[in-house]
Each structure stands twice: as structure tokens, then as C-alpha cells.
């Protein structure tokens, strides 16, 4: 079975254009014991960052001015195969969930959300990523 410390050391990238949101997300995740957190408020950097760092989870806000989350998802699919891509989108618009799931996201969180919503989604995504790696479905 899984060792929780393995899950908690999963590499996470937070993408949100609003620094206060990033801070809050970081605080919730760090409070729960996650140790490998990075963040950016510039959506243009996400693909390069992922190519360089191979995150286990990308937490992506869908409504970013300039380059919206759907375009970021498109770009990420060029970096990593869609079947492996581990993206959790955050959205305030119910209609966007389906579009994001079809666009390559694995799961979504509807805004407003609280710590339990966030931590449950994040833990599940990382747990799956680890189990898939162990099953040989993709490189760790």
C-alpha cells in the first residue's frame, strides 16, 4: 500500500494569476504536509516549467486573463501524453468543468471550495499518479 509520505512529497505546481490565491493554496497544502510546492502566476511559463520539472500534479485556474486555462491544457498535452497528464482545474463556471475534462484535465474543483475539498482532490490525484507509476503505467 501507499506510504503517505510518498504522496506528500509529490511535486505540485500551482497556476493562478492572483498572488493571494496562490498564497492561500500554498498555505492549505503546506499545512497538510505537502513539501514540494511551486507556483507561477504567468500561464505562459507552465509548459516550460512542466517540461523541466515533470510535476506530479498541476493545479490550474481556468480563468486567467491573457492565456486561459484551456489553452494551457492544450499546450501541456504537447509536453506529456494526455493519458498521463495530471491536471486538476479550479473553476467558478459549471459549464467549464466538462470542457476541461474533455480537454485533458483529470478532475476539477468548483469555486468556492474549502480545505477539505482541495485536500481530498489533491491527495487522490497524487495517490493515483504514484500507483500508476508503480504499476508501470508511466515512469515515476
Amino acid at each position, binding site marked *: 500500500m501507499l506510504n503517505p509520505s510518498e*504522496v506528500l512529497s509529490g511535486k505540485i505546481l500551482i497556476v493562478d494569476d492572483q498572488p493571494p490565491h496562490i498564497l492561500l493554496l500554498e498555505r492549505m497544502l503546506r499545512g497538510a504536509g505537502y513539501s514540494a510546492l511551486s507556483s507561477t502566476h504567468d500561464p505562459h511559463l507552465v509548459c516550460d516549467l512542466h517540461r523541466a520539472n515533470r510535476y506530479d500534479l498541476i493545479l490550474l485556474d481556468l480563468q486567467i486573463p491573457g492565456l486561459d486555462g484551456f489553452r494551457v491544457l492544450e499546450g501541456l498535452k504537447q509536453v506529456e501524453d494526455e493519458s498521463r497528464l495530471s491536471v486538476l482545474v479550479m473553476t467558478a463556471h459549471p459549464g467549464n468543468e*466538462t470542457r476541461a475534462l474533455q480537454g485533458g484535465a483529470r478532475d476539477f474543483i468548483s469555486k468556492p471550495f474549502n480545505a477539505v475539498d482541495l485536500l481530498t482532490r489533491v491527495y487522490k490525484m497524487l495517490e493515483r499518479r504514484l*500507483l500508476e507509476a*508503480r*504499476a508501470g503505467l508511466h515512469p515515476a
Partner: protein
Amino acid sequence: MLDPSEVLAARVLIVDDQQANVLLVERILRGAGYTSVTSTRDPDIVTELHRKNQYDLILLDLVMPVLDGFQVLESLKRVEKGGYLSVLVMTAHAGHKQRALRNGAKDFISKPFNTVEVLTRVYNLLELRLLHKQDRKKKRKAPHERVRTLLYVEDNAANLKLVERLVARRPNMRFLSAQDASLGIALARAAQPDVILMDINLPGMSGHEALKLLREDPATEHIPVVALSAHAVPRDIAKALASGFFQYLTKPLEITEFMDTLDTVLAFRENDLGQRKIGREEDHAQPV
């Protein structure tokens, strides 16, 4: 990513006392291609159904008359053999989510239902359950399994001997014993066993008092404790389970039942470690 056909063929049970909810969820799942969906409106039979069928996913309503979802959760973990009890609770109360997670649920969906949410949570949790199953199978074949420890608190020498022999049947299992409750508690703190088997009628401090102390101490609160007693009427058993014993076994010890309980509790223990982290988090953090 698992083959979607594997996920769609997984066994799903829907538990809700309201016919309309059962029909709605069934329709959503069948419409999405799930082929093995069953349902019940009677929470009383859920545990027995799971014991027999070992579902890959149970969608569980929390607010039901007579036996509520939390009680069902409590008894389900005693019959899960695969170690990953895959329960998705359906709730209209935000506050119930955290409580359900703490009680062993793996995830939640909100009522009234949102089709996208239902399908995403169901699919993702089934995937996790199937991955856990695969992982477990692989592990079982692997030679280096972690050594687990059982601590038996018992004053009767014949019983000690019997359990020691039974535990020796499991590879990689270590047996520790204590002849009274205070010694048992001290040993539990020091040796951090994976499971404690506790005689109820001990000289001096009883098994009930010992459980209370173990639960109050952060060093031992997480260790599952199985009660063992010769004087067991159903009311005592129900009371013991409600007070926090993982399972209640009666003397003379039934060997198959004991071995089954041992497997269930060890599997539960492994998964509990990961889940507890979330359950403890405050549910009142600022919304983002």
C-alpha cells in the same frame, strides 16, 4: 491510465433510502456505460452484501432512518478484504464530508446531484480502487513485506499460547504479549504494534479502561484494537464497537474468524494512514 472498459465493468452498489435518488444515480451511471450497477434502499443489508460481493465502489447516502450512513461505514470496514474500502458518500451537508472521511469514506459528492461531478468522482475513485487492487496483488508476490506486530493483552496462558501459534502462521508477523492492561499500554507505546488484541476481563484494569487510555494517547490512538471476551451478549458487543473497538471476538476463539479479522485489520491499518491526514483538516478554512 487504466483501460476504461475495466473501470466500466467494476461492481458498484448504490445505497439510498429514497427511491428517486437511487433511480437517478442508476440512470446516470448506466447512461455512462457502467454495466454492473446494483442498488438497495435498506442500509441494514449493506455490510452483508459487501461481505459477499466485495464491491469496487459503494455510493452511500448519509442520512437514512434507523441506520445512518456513518454507522454503515463503521461496519463496512470490518468486512473489506481488499484493504481499500471504496465508499463515496452522497451528502447535502458540507459538514458531513469531513466526518465521513474521518470515518473511512474515500470521497464525497454533493446533493443535489450534478451529473459531471457524479461521473468524475465515480470514475476516479474506481480507478484508484482498481490500481490499489493491482498494487496489492503485486505486493503479495513480492518477498520483502514489512514485518507487522500483534500485541496480545491476556492473563490466560492457554489463550496466549493459542494466539501465538495462530500468528506464527502468517509470515512476517511478530507476536508480543502482556499479562495485564498497564503493561499492555506501556508496550503499545514503546513497540507501536500494528494491531492490539485485548482481553476484556483482565485483572486490575479492564480491557474497556485500557482502550480508553490507548485512545487518549496520541502515540497509540491510531492503533486498531480488537476485543476478546468470553461473556458476550449482543448488547455488550454493540457497546464495545461503539466505544471504539475495531472488532469483537468471542471465546473460545473461532480460528477462521480470527485469521479473517487479522487480515482485515492489517489491510485497514495500511490504508488508514493515508486517509487520516485529510480527515483531520479543518473544514472551515477560508473559501478560495
